[in-house]
């Protein structure tokens, strides 16, 4: 592997300054499950990696006094997936994080790294989009916050500018009675990167014609993880079997996938329809049962 230096700053200011100093040749370094492979394969040539794991609050997962979940950007997938409060109140997110790779990889892979790497297939993203999470950023100009939906710009691209770091994600509590599921299709039953993923969150809503409201997000079928707004709207109107079918088709229509080594675009589009239908049916069945 090409040599690089390693630094482990203690403050956000120091970290941001280091990222600025090296003229773009310094990279934030969290679990390094994406980064090290890119360096090894010669796609990235950093002079220095800036380990962000010792920065204040970066490794913490906690429910704040306002009821929002705060996930430090360098918290691991296992920390989130196994956290009692996440399992109880944000189980859709636990499902997404638990679906990443293997147990030992999840001990290193972080949620912040997953989001900053900005793969369309990032498995923590669909659940966080459904919960309307917010990304908190620190940089030379201080702090700013961006709704996660605006965080991704394209494959490997985010709104982060030079010298900026993702510090945390906050996740508001879902509506009362919300039920969510993450459906991931890989080439193997467990442990593979998503070929298609669909996160579905539904909750009782007397104001909606169908008596329910929905957030649906899709992974690996567009340049970024996306919400399927038309499918959500249709389900709010009609959650009967015909309505579910129409919404599943609308979700498939929102997908803009590509052909790649894992699957064809046509297959991906059709699987969005199938997984959306399965997800919505499952959520409806659980809402009825409770």
């Amino acid at each position, binding site marked *: *592997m090409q040599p690089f230096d390693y630094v482990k700053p203690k403050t956000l200011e120091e970290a941001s300054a280091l990222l600025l100093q090296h003229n773009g040749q310094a990279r934030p370094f969290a679990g390094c499950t994406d980064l090290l*492979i890119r360096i*090894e394969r010669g796609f990235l040539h950093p002079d220095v990696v800036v380990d962000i794991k010792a920065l204040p609050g970066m490794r913490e997962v906690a429910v704040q006094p306002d009821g929002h979940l705060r996930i430090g950007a360098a918290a691991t997938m296992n920390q989130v997936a196994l956290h009692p409060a996440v399992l109880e109140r944000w189980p859709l997110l636990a499902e997404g994080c638990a679906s990443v*790779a*293997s147990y030992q990889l999840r*001990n290193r892979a972080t949620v912040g790294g997953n989001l900053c790497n900005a793969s369309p297939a990032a498995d923590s993203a669909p659940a966080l989009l459904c919960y309307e999470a917010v990304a908190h950023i620190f940089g030379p100009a201080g702090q700013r916050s961006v709704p996660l939906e605006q965080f991704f710009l394209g494959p490997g691209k985010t709104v982060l500018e030079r010298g900026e770091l993702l510090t945390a994600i906050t996740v508001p509590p879902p509506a009362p009675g919300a039920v969510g599921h993450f459906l991931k299709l890989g080439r193997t039953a*467990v*442990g593979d990167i998503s070929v298609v993923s669909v996160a579905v969150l539904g909750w009782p809503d007397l104001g909606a014609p169908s008596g329910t409201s929905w957030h649906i997000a899709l992974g690996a079928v567009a340049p970024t993880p996306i919400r399927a707004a038309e499918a959500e709207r249709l389900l709010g109107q009609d959650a009967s079997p015909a309505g579910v079918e129409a919404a599943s088709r609308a979700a498939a229509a929102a997908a803009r996938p590509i052909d790649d080594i894992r699957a064809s675009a046509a297959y991906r589009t059709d699987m969005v329809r199938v997984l959306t239908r399965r997800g919505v049916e499952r959520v409806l069945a659980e809402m009825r049962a409770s």
Partner: protein
Amino acid sequence: MRHEISFTVNGERYDITVQSHHTLLQVLREQLVLTGTKNGCSEGECGACTVLMDGEPVNSCLVLGVEADGHEIITVEGLATDGHLAPIQRTMVELGGTQCGFCTPGILIAAHALLQRNPNPSEQEIREGLVGNLCRCTGYMRIIAAVREAARLQQADTLN
């Protein structure tokens, strides 16, 4: 580029100098000459390099050596205690859970860690617990049987 680190490996303390860009796997194999841990894919897929870091399994090919500073590492060489093989080591031998042996150290560590966090795993849980460890010889059936048997032995041990 060079870092002084102190860490323990299999209960022994080491104070060594490592290069920034060397992985924990390289440090273990090339500096400490603990070659039980294997380098398979170098990309976190195969699990041959799995070691315990503070009791939790990690792919040592995706950890920098410098990150081990202040931490406790257990490799396959450290699984046995006082010359007694760990239950999973015994059952892998007895039930033939190994053929060429290249994946075995990683499987032993991952299975050992699985049994620590879940002393009585179902077959599904064993399969999921070992999804990050590839074996190209055995077809996995004997490995799964060995984990199940190790769980039984471990429970019998705690009852005695």
